[in-house]
């Protein structure tokens, strides 16, 4: 309920009184007023998260090219992988039969890459990769791994983008439609990849 202006200070005092003497704020740092720049200096400084394991899958050739532009940057524990031969993958394809490779062309194994992963990011520029998206996302779902989709816009056609979005919508908990490839490093950096 809205607070009565006239009773506000009484109400405040009553609230404080209920806390008892131990909890009564007597110092700046023990009440909400501590949200100052000076008090911020006393925040505990320590690394508050462990290194994350991120797996990025380019689902088509154009997505792979966009991804390759950043694979040489400094990343914590991110693996960049390309799905090969989309046409051979169906929704029923087993995880160990999904053809993927590292940026240097060496083959990789989906099960091994997903083991211990914290987050998976699917990159796509067209709708040709729905089956691959489904297989990878299904594996993520089974392993309780967060799966995000990033659709990279190519040209003004909204029809092709709809295909990309629809190909990933059913399988990702978060879907981003970006106009520029430079969102890939922005997103991965923000996620501490």
């Amino acid at each position, binding site marked *: *309920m*809205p*607070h009565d*202006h006239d009773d*506000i200070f009484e*109400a*405040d005092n009553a*609230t404080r009184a209920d806390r008892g003497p131990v909890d009564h*704020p007597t110092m700046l740092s023990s*009440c*909400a*007023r501590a*949200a*100052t*720049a000076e*008090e*911020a200096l006393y*925040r505990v400084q320590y690394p*508050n*998260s462990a290194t994350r394991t991120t797996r990025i899958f380019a689902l088509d050739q154009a997505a792979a090219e966009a991804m390759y532009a950043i694979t040489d940057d400094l990343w914590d524990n991110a693996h960049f992988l390309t799905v090969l031969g989309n046409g051979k993958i169906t929704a029923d394809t087993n995880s160990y039969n999904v053809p993927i490779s590292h940026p240097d062309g060496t083959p990789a194994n989906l099960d091994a890459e997903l083991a211990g992963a914290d*987050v998976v990011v699917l990159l796509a520029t067209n709708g040709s990769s729905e089956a691959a998206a489904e297989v990878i996302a299904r594996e993520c779902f089974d392993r309780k791994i*967060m799966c*995000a989709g990033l659709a990279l*816009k190519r040209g003004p056609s*909204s029809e092709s983008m*709809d295909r990309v*979005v*629809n190909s990933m*919508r*059913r399988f*990702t*908990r*978060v*879907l*981003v*439609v*970006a*106009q*520029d490839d*430079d*969102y890939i490093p*922005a*997103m991965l*950096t*923000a*996620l*501490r990849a």
Partner: protein
Amino acid sequence: MLRKEINELLTETDAGKPMGDMFRQYWIPALLASELPEDDCPPTRVKLLGERLIAFRDSKGRYGLMDEFCAHRGVSLWFGRNEEDGLRCPYHGWKYDYTGQCIEVPSEPEESGFCAKIKLKGYPLIKVGDVLWTHMGEKEDRPPAPIWEFATVPPEQTYSSKRWQECNWLQAMEGGIDSSHVSFLHSGGLKTDPLFRGAKGNTYNENDKKPVFEVVESDGGLHIGARRNAEEGHYYWRVTPWIMPSFTMVPPRGDHPMHGHFWIPIDDHNCWAWSFDYHPTRALSPTERQAMEDGYGVHNQYVPGTFRPLQNKDNDYLMDREAQKRGDSYSGIWGIAMQDASLQESMGPIVDRTKENLVSTDNGIIMARHRLRKAVVALRDKGVQPPGRTPEHQLVRSAARVLPPEEPFGDAMKDDLTARPGVKQTSV
């Protein structure tokens, strides 16, 4: 996580700072029109983008916004006399017109023309809706007057308020595009708040606590869609538009008025949180208007005579642990606005984003920062004007709708997300 230098780039808005220059490309809300209610009324002090200014309304109804301090000896013109088409410093009688031009220096010979050489920095101040807007950039860069729908519907259909928020503008604004906090922080309000309760869409919110998010870039900023399960495999979509740099709208509920916000920097450690409610096709009812004045919905109560919220950091926001325990209020703080503000202020004046741990559902925030950074750099390095200044970018609405699973909200809701005079909002 955001690197320190980018955090500074986006949060510092004084004159000469890149983000400060970017805010100066827009018409921004400066005052409620009710703060200058009549010709020759008392002037009002206002601080915007790190500049201390004085606003007044002269004898002919012209609005002025200029440097707060007299060019003579630095006296605050808040003490001034607003009379006969100008604001006169009470110390030695220097007088300024609504543009900041000095028009009288009593101690100098009238014929000397001395006063023509004195001019306070002044900015245009125009009334659109119940808000006074200013453009603090160069005249040649001035965009068309704002045409946001909340400010252009008839007066009986709209209500605006503003409150002082004691933190940087960016962390406040990020709360407006952070759809995933609603299921927690504001969960109590859907059942009780008179400006939210009773909508069918609320049941979808309550039944599906794990929405799926889609973030789509738009020409003016972003559309952030939150998708929940509805009947028979359909999806309930709630779509929030964000227009650069700091305009957002909350998706509507039933026939309740629509609402949204602007976050405008006062300085790097404080901002104005502007909140508005409007209905596109009907007058607000007396009950709705009263609820807004009482601080329900996105509005708040005040320390009397000020724009400071009644619940503030000096009283621990009147935290109610019993209400928190009962679940009436998830955080124990009363009211949607102060539930947000209390937590955002607790982050500190400028949150240290190098320490944060964002997750995938924070992509709306990540993308907004990305768009802001690109726009700031493009303006700074190439003089490219940022998005959000033009009428076509401002004709937006939030919307809520149930759709079949195969329909992207961007296509299916394109009209719903566009402000259309005389057309009711799309809501569930």
